[in-house]
């Protein structure tokens, strides 16, 4: 397995979906079966090697980069094909490969209009390469390319297969379809952020003379980046990552994009794409600019708690089920960012586990919401109700996942919230205790609000008697493709909940060594 450890393994994880996408271009459009199997194969290969990586991963050395390589890529600007994973990237890499496979399985029989499975699968596979690549890249330029690679497929996925309901925008005379508005809004917001992120990367390169993330992190730890320069660079990186997370007040693209996207698009967006932002903070912004992270931390903490409270309150105002779940993401990512802002091992480990947990839970919620919309042809919670009676299995799963989402101990969602609050009780030395303890209290209230809106949603959607309009409708409960896609997610919700070491086993040491280096 020498070849695997020397970069080929990770490259296969990243690029086999891309190869699959190119192969799909050669498949005739009519031949849907071949297209589906080919896509499944390509994403399966990716997942297989991601799992192999997890098994071969040396957990004793979780803080070091493993399976890495460094090859010449663009010597003209001093950028290399430098990849590798540590204990922080590993769980996210496996998560992203797995969610892609599950999305393809789910799609098998659930193609959004206008059909065209081949095109849809090509986009999923492109996304897969971009997401996996972001988690393995150890070079800023490479990271940037992968980070941007997800934009186009998601733009097309929302814009072509998205929601065709017309909405009236303030300031425009004509109505516009939701998908068109949401897709371009997503694109522009993210590109705006990443344009500034790129400026930050370049600035780092001028001071540090390198694009290599480990090398820059070493320089950052030695205190090479200081002063106004570093403050501005952190600000530029902050803008890029914060749009992606998304942090309040840069979140406004998210509810639109999530609501308009087809089911699989929402799932991938929530489960993986949002993590690219928070991962960027942990991998790039904090290790390279630790001192600046310290001066920005209180601001991040404040924005994070605003997001928690705002997200929860906004949820209570929603009538659309998918939009409610979208806003819940704002709140949950607020906990992730709160954990990161404490700059402590506990807080950042909380962020990692919170990211994975949010990925499986919210991914699952979007799957469920999508399937319900598929059956009821509406997302209006006022018209739903008694779902548990009409579809006991689906309803049960919804109840279970909502419980996980509200942070019930024993399920995956608990650890991220709990540890983030724990971390903010005792943030890194030198950070204002007042700010972080206040944040902790508000965050704790946020957990109550979270429970509130999720229970409120369950009550509206799941409980009670079915509405009269559904009389005589025969709803088929969970079908086999849905089952195949969802059971692994449900199992991992329980598994992470009762045995969080699956994630922390790798992440803990990696975070510890990262923090030791930086501070």
């Amino acid at each position, binding site marked *: 397995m020498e070849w695997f450890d020397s970069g080929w393994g990770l490259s296969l994880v990243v690029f086999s979906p891309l190869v699959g996408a190119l192969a799909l271009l050669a498949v005739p459009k009519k031949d849907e079966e071949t297209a589906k199997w080919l896509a499944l194969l390509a994403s399966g290969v990716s997942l297989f090697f991601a799992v192999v990586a997890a098994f071969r991963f040396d957990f004793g050395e979780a803080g070091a980069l493993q399976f890495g390589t460094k090859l*010449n*890529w*663009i*010597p*003209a*600007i001093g950028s290399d094909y430098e990849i590798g994973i540590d204990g922080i990237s590993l769980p996210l890499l496996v998560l992203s490969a797995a969610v892609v496979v599950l999305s393809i399985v789910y799609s098998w029989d659930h193609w959004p209009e206008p059909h065209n499975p081949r095109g849809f699968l090509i986009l999923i596979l492109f996304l897969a390469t971009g997401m996996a690549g972001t988690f393995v890249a150890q070079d800023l*330029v490479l990271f*940037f*390319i992968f980070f*941007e*690679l997800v*934009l*186009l497929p998601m*733009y*097309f996925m929302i*814009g*072509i297969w998205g929601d065709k309901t017309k909405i009236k925008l303030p300031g425009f005379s004509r109505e516009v379809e939701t*998908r*068109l508005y949401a*897709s*371009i809004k997503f*694109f*522009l917001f993210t*590109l*705006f952020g990443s*344009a*500034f992120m*790129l*400026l930050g990367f*370049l*600035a780092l*390169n*001028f001071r540090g003379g390198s694009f290599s993330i480990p090398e820059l992190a070493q320089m950052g730890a030695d205190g090479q980046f200081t002063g106004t320069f570093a403050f501005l660079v952190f600000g530029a990186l902050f803008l890029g990552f914060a749009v992606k997370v998304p942090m309040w007040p840069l979140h406004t693209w998210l509810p639109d994009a999530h609501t308009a996207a087809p089911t699989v698009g929402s799932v991938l967006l929530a489960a993986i794409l949002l993590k690219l932002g928070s991962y960027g903070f942990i991998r790039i912004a904090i290790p390279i600019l630790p001192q600046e992270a310290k001066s920005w931390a209180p601001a991040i903490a404040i924005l994070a708690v605003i997001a928690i409270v705002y997200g929860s309150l906004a949820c209570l105002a929603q009538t659309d089920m998918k939009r409610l779940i979208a806003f819940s993401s704002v709140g949950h990512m607020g906990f992730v960012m709160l954990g990161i802002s404490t700059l402590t091992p506990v807080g950042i480990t909380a962020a990692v586990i919170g990211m994975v947990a949010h990925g499986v839970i919210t991914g699952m919620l979007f799957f469920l919401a999508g399937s319900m919309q598929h059956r009821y042809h509406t997302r209006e919670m006022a018209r739903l109700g008694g779902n548990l009676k009409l579809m006991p299995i689906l309803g049960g799963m919804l109840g279970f996942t909502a419980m996980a989402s509200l942070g019930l101990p024993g399920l995956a969602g608990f650890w991220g919230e709990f540890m983030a609050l724990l971390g903010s009780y005792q943030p890194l030395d030198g950070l204002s205790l007042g700010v972080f303890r206040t944040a902790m209290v508000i965050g704790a209230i946020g957990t109550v609000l979270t429970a509130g809106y999720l229970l409120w949603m369950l009550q509206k959607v799941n409980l009670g008697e079915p509405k009269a309009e559904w009389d005589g409708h025969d709803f088929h409960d969970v079908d086999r493709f849905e089952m195949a896609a969802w059971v692994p997610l449900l199992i991992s919700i329980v598994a992470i909940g009762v045995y969080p070491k699956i994630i922390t086993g790798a992440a803990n040491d990696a975070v510890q060594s990262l923090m030791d280096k930086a501070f």
Partner: protein
Amino acid sequence: MFDYHALAPDFIVAATVLAVLGADLFLPKERKWLAAVLGILGLTVALIPIATLAASDDSLRSMMGGSYVVDDFALVLKVFFILTGYVVLLMSVAYLESDRYYQGEYYFLVLASLLGGMVMASSRDLITLFVGLELVSGPAFLLAGWKKADARSNEAALKFFIIGVLSAAILLYGMSLVYGMTGSLSFDGIGEASASVAEEPVFVLGILLVLVGFGFKVSAVPFHFWAPDTYEGAPTPVTAYLSVGSKAAGFVGMLLVSYVAFAGAPDIWGPALWILAALSMIVGNLVALRQENIVRLLAYSSIAHAGFMLVPFAAAGLVEGQDLNQAFEATVSYVLIYGIMNLGAFAVVIAAARRTGSGQIRDWTGLGSYAPGISILLTIFFFSLAGIPPLAGWYAKFVMFLAVLQNANGWTIALAAIAAVNAVVALYYYARVVQTVWMDPAPQRLPVDPDPSGIAPSLALAFGLLAIGVIVVGVFPEAIGQFAKAASFIAGG
């Protein structure tokens, strides 16, 4: 005196120009496309001495007292002009075949204009530079008015001609002032003498007038107003040539005078080009947002791109002790990549306009559903122009930012921020076209396909090659990076 090896590429192209004109006399009407084939063959032969020159150890061949030089910069740009010629000829064949209209003369003019670009790349004094520039422009005036029965084409040619002559006059006047102050025509001589006259207002005026002259050529705001009308009225392959070949020639001139001749006076041209860069980006992009016609949209987009290409100049001129090579390299990389993707965009626009029978963006709704091939290529080229990775455009913007942020000061950071915001604005109008093509519903009655047997093979070849180029350069930008690096050593004298 003459190094025939070094002059061989230019001689071969010159011979090709004459051969095409001669062959046209004997070719029967239905075989006129053979003139284009002859032109392509001639351009290919011209690549051979370029390859041997690049491989030879003697990397600097100077002739005629240093007026005419063949170095790596000249070679890279000559290859660029030859390849541009390839693509323009390929695009033109199908376009001209449809109405069989003075084809032989057309190819002759395209090749003659290219030869001008090749001469400019080698020129190292003001006269040679000016002669080269006029050789680029003269045939281009005629080409713009090629559809002589079409009022718009006439308007295009007339506007282009009047502005072209005006800008040549301004340029020449500026050159005469520079010559008067420094007593030298050669760039090296001007560079040496400039230190003693840098404070003289007349010398400053001379530099500024030269820059204004080239500003017209590269269509930088506020000297851009001819471009949209000319681009719209001219036959589309000619527009492609104007927006790439002619613009690149303008940049060759600008690079040479700024970095070589006026290398000692960056504090004069730096601020001036800062203003041109900022205005071109802002005005070009904002006006492009409102365009309904695809060619006008690309015209404004090319104005905005000229702004991006000028950004490194401003950085080089405004920062003390700036590494001129880096800025030079950035602009060269940008020009090369822009050439590939903009030619591609025009090639695909020709195909799409033919398929839909319209150049209005709103008539392209749902093109993706009935012409997916064209639509995929359109998506690739437009998003490459927008600078979305992994398509080639990202690298152009990347090196531009790299150059402007090195040794940054307040002015360059401000310019970088303007460029960053403009990159986002630009995405909006490129994405709008893509949205129309893929996301809006197709019309009830599809336009009749003018060529049911498929797109003309020459056109398909043109954009096939360009699409591969855009993707390969986007994933492995090293090739362009090396070319630009090789070209950049002349900066700073």
